[in-house]
């Protein structure tokens, strides 16, 4: 079956643009307008991958990602962040976005699709606390 993607984005126009793009690339695409809506959609149907904006009303992307990661049932869903924030602004949230690829708006459609394909092939984030993820040798 085609992989399903949940797109969480508060801008309706951009939501439409990205979902058209994803469907044309062969994905099933569900959308949500903020983090809270996103969590409800995830609870109803667990997607294979999540694309999330960061600055959103009701519940922002950081909180949304934090909750997804904290729940063992959803912790391993791969996430891609699409944001209009600057790298400097993102730096203060470095720790929250560990293991999450971040694409800056305006993004390149090809780059987005490549990132999605790569994540779907390798699977979700690797687990392990800070003590165990060191690379030896």
């Amino acid at each position, binding site marked *: 079956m085609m992989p399903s993607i949940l797109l969480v984005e508060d801008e309706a126009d951009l939501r439409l643009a990205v979902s058209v793009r994803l469907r044309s690339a062969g994905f099933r695409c569900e959308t949500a307008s903020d983090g809270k809506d996103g969590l409800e959609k995830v609870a109803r149907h667990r997607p294979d991958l999540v694309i999330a904006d960061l600055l959103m009303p009701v519940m922002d992307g950081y909180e949304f990602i934090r909750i997804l990661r904290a729940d063992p049932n959803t912790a391993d869903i791969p996430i891609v962040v699409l944001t209009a924030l*600057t790298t400097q602004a993102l730096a203060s949230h470095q720790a929250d976005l560990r293991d999450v690829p971040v694409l800056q708006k*305006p993004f390149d*459609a090809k780059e987005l699709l490549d990132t999605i394909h790569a994540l779907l092939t390798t699977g979700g984030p690797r687990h392990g606390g800070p003590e165990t993820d060191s*690379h030896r040798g």
Partner: protein
Amino acid sequence: MSKPPITVLLVEDDEGHLFLTREALTQEGFQVEVCRTGHEALEHSQRTDYHVYVIDVKLPDLTGLEVLRRLTTLKPGIVAIIVSGHGDEMAAVEAMKAGAYDYVVKSPSMGHLATLPVVIREVLARRQLKEEREQLQNELWEHTRLLEERNMELRRANEELKRLNQLKSDFVTMVSHELRTPMSTVKEFAGIIQEGIAGPTSPEQRQYLAIIQENVDRLSRIINDLLDMAQIESGQLLLNKVMVDPVPLVQHVLQSMRPLAATKGLTLDVSASTALPGIFADEDKVTQVLINLVSNAIKFTEPGGRIEVSAFEESHDVEFSVSDTGIGIAAADLPKLFEKFQQLHRDPRETVGKGTGLGLAISKRLVELHGGRIQATSEPGRGSLFSFTLPKHQPDEIFREYLHNGIEQAKRRQSRFSISVISVTNFLELKARYGLEEANRILRELERFIKHTVRRRAGDVVTRWQRGEMVVILAEVDQAGSRAITDRIGRLVAQQTFVVGSDAVKLFIIAATATYPDEAVTDEELIKMTEMRLHQLESKKLRVLVVDDEPKTRELLRGALEHHGYEVLTASHGPEALQQLKEQAVDLILLDLMMPVMDGYELYHLLREDPRTKHVPVIIVTAKGDRKDRQLGLSHATYNYVEKPFQFEALFAKMDQVLDQREGAQR
């Protein structure tokens, strides 16, 4: 001009004394008024102020002391002199305590009448000095208060400036954020239509849609440039400096620019020393500068031309340069090149302003933020050469920079920042034995080992600091985390063996950590904190007394023990050992049994009887067959012993075991 007379209120009930005193004072030029009772005096002073009050101790209604107390309550700061009867000095002392300025004792010969005017003048002089001093003090306080006020104002102004800067930066960030989202929508839909996802399109339509997308990209580059500039100018740009290897960095830039050069038919070459020293820099920013210079070169070079990127080591820095065979820059334009919003008409055929005119200005500031210089030379029609330098750093400077950056970032992110200082305690010994070069090589190996041991995350760094010391910088790690990491390093290093020639060498380390902002808020404080802790650890070294009559054995043991991080005392016989123990406490005693003067057994029992040494663990070092414990009827369990010739491993294992037991017992 004559001064107004000094007014005196004389409180005295004895008519004779009153008369004589008034006479004496009036003659000296004082203006005297008289009261015969305490109440009268109090009443008078309600109405009039006097310079001086001369009060007799004994009055018919109140005591002189009581009058003085009431007067000082009534008029704080008055000048009063108490006149006491002969032999009533106690009353005078009481009066001084109650606030009198001085006292005079009546003498039967009336001699005190001559001293009274002197005392009055002296007291008034003292009073004046006191007032002047108080005034100075008050002025000083006033000045201090004003200074503090100014300081507060400055602080407020500073806060305000910071707030405005933040506002400006927030504004730029917000605007850029608001622009980027609609730009994404435009770009996405243009792409969707162009790629035929929404239905068939004509070639002409597809061409126009591609132009829309290109222009969105251009807009986004402009926004990036403006953001960069805003951040640099508001002082908000923090360099994230790490050790960077320049060669891969240049290769990476070339790789990403090659397609663009190829489409324009340009050769893109690199020429760099293979072995360049690492530079301490923000990798992204240096890449940004190089990409800017290379893309400029591509833009202004005709097809068939050549662009060369090079990197070389100079005496104080590493120099990067980008040369092209392009159209060049007129000499008159060179000085304006790095200014903001400069769009030079370099090529009449080129459309003006494909960018913001900020690229070189940003590059210049980024290079300067690194402490480097950027410059350009050109020959119109032949080509241009842009070069910039980045300074080489001493390890100590790098360490300080790491600290400073780490704290700044933690401040901004409101997160934690820890350092862990690791000191190799046997570094000096290694240096003495193998030479400085080898000792440093072992340290480099340790550095690598620690790098693999600690969690590697952005911002975590291992750097050498002082001789035999190494620092691990742990970004966003709290106290508990940094202690856990430090302990782990200690455990793993203890298990590790390093090789020097044919020797296997152990490194003994002590490590201390400190965390921002829990334990220290400046880099200096962080260092002080770790140094203090290292010092404590150093002084906590366990002290061992070796008692053996054989000099060779003593020295052998001393070497091995010191190598293991113990502090070692030696004694060649029992009495000397006892003398040593009188002078200082030890944690463990290694005792030979067969010794002249006093044998080990005797010494052992003396130690056990002395309350000061009763609890110090003793390990008996005995030659095989020497053991007399059974003969002496002592239980085997009483002793910890190691048999000679011993293996050091066995000795250290025994020592650890004994010391562990001791620590367990203490808890």
